[in-house]
């Protein structure tokens, strides 16, 4: 079975709307969390979010096309453009049909739904915009990415709440291994910052009043984010044949369901997904020096994740570096696993482990080296990226460094 490699990355994130800006902030430990500005807060107790800043839709799309694009689809297309350009791919001839599109979406075009229903229920509007449905459908971002590049291979959305992008990338890996595609444009996207959605999060009582401090003793909950990340995955054979710059290997994936609780995390299910990812990648626990954690900064997730890591890695767990990029990115739900996969690939490429920002003091309930506040320059050969969703749906990706990758790129 041939290897699967990463040849392109693209991001739209609270810490940068392109990979170089994203990387710089990620390695500097600069958080994108701040006051909520895109939603009126007078009826919200949630006042902070990780918003994509400095993004103007009209810089990226003409007005006619924009009418069809919910924010979630805009993010996906902008991230995909960067990833495809980085991969240096042109989808002419037979490649278009051999290229699949698999995106993770947690929530979908909720901005469109929120606006439409406000018009309908509050303003008593007689009719809704005819593009309401095509904008809000959960598969719309995947459709727009196919249309952007003329990709005619298999295309669909994977949805598993906060693990959606992890499942999308795992599915992309399987498509390539099965020989059903030569290239997969994969990742995740979500734009869930609306009044209606945030009221829902508020009611769950797990959102932080100030910021996201994963694994820290004084952590106070998650921060909702938004964004998209796209990775171009290829069979190694295809990438080498066209002389592409290979950024990393997607070496394996592990998926599991807790089958227990709709909101409470479960160490056993999480541990099982990590073990499966290691096995699938042919990695021993000691081969992995770094885990990009799910790390939401809820009391329950971080303690459970730490427990699962100890169950899988045994004595090696205390030497592992375990950082959460959500301390900077917030939790972009369906995009989270893809943004974190990009962070993991960058860590491998550059030999820099991104920190957990906003960290104040260790929590005995989370006995891991969280790489507090400052990145570490240390060459790493392999890393896991964890995604554990509400509803107990888990996806873990295993990446491996490619020794002969291009220097300093991206």
């Amino acid at each position, binding site marked *: 079975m041939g290897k699967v490699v990463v040849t392109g990355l693209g991001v739209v994130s609270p810490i940068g709307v392109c990979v170089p800006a994203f990387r710089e902030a990620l390695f500097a430990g600069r958080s994108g969390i701040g006051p909520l500005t895109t939603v009126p807060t007078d009826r919200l107790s949630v006042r902070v979010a990780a918003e994509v800043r400095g993004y103007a839709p009209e810089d990226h799309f003409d007005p006619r096309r924009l009418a069809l694009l919910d924010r979630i689809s805009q993010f996906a297309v902008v991230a995909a453009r960067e990833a495809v350009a980085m991969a240096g791919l042109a989808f002419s001839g037979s490649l278009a049909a051999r290229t699949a599109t698999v995106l993770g979406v947690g929530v979908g075009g909720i901005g469109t739904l929120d606006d439409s229903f406000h018009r309908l229920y509050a303003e008593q509007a007689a009719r809704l915009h005819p593009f309401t449905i095509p904008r809000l459908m959960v598969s719309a971002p995947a459709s727009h990415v196919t249309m952007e590049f003329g990709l005619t291979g298999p295309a669909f959305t994977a949805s598993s709440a906060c693990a959606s992008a992890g499942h999308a990338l795992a599915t992309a890996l399987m498509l390539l291994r099965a020989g059903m595609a030569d290239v997969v444009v994969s990742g995740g996207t979500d734009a869930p910052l609306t009044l209606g959605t945030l009221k829902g999060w508020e*009611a769950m*009582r*797990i*959102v932080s009043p100030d910021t996201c401090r994963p694994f820290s003793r004084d952590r106070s909950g998650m921060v909702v984010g938004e964004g998209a990340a796209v990775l171009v995955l290829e069979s190694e054979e295809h990438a080498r044949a066209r002389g592409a710059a290979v950024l990393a290997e997607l070496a394996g994936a592990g998926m599991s369901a807790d089958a227990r609780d709709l*909101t409470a995390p479960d160490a056993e299910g999480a541990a099982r997904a990590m073990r499966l990812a290691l096995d699938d990648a042919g990695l021993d626990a000691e081969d992995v020096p770094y885990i990009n954690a799910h790390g939401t900064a809820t009391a329950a997730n971080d303690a459970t994740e730490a427990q699962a890591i100890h169950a899988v890695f045994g004595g090696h767990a205390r030497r592992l570096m375990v950082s959460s990029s959500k301390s900077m990115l917030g939790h972009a739900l369906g995009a989270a696993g893809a943004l974190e996969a990009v962070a993991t690939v960058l860590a491998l490429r550059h030999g820099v482990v991104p920190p957990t920002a906003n960290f104040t003091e260790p929590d005995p309930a989370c006995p891991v080296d969280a790489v507090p506040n400052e990145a570490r320059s240390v060459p790493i050969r392999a890393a896991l990226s964890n995604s554990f969703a509400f509803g107990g749906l888990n996806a873990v990706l295993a990446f491996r460094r490619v020794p002969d990758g291009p220097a300093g790129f991206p």
Partner: protein
Amino acid sequence: MDRTADDVLSIIADKGHVDRERLAYDARLADLSIASLDVIEIIFALEERFQIEIPFNANDARQEFDSVGDIVRAVEAEVAQRRVA
């Protein structure tokens, strides 16, 4: 028992799926098998019933409820404050 406390206990019994007789003030929610998801549903129902906001964050031990009495006292405090306001 005053009316407020009586209503609070009814809501805890209903949403927590616990017999009303077991709801002593010092009874711990964990011992009553009232799970975290039940607690946020109880708080939602109490906020709706009394038109109050109960400060509660599942990540913050200082704002968490350990016992039945904790919930009753929190509601009584918010209801009293609303009367003053």
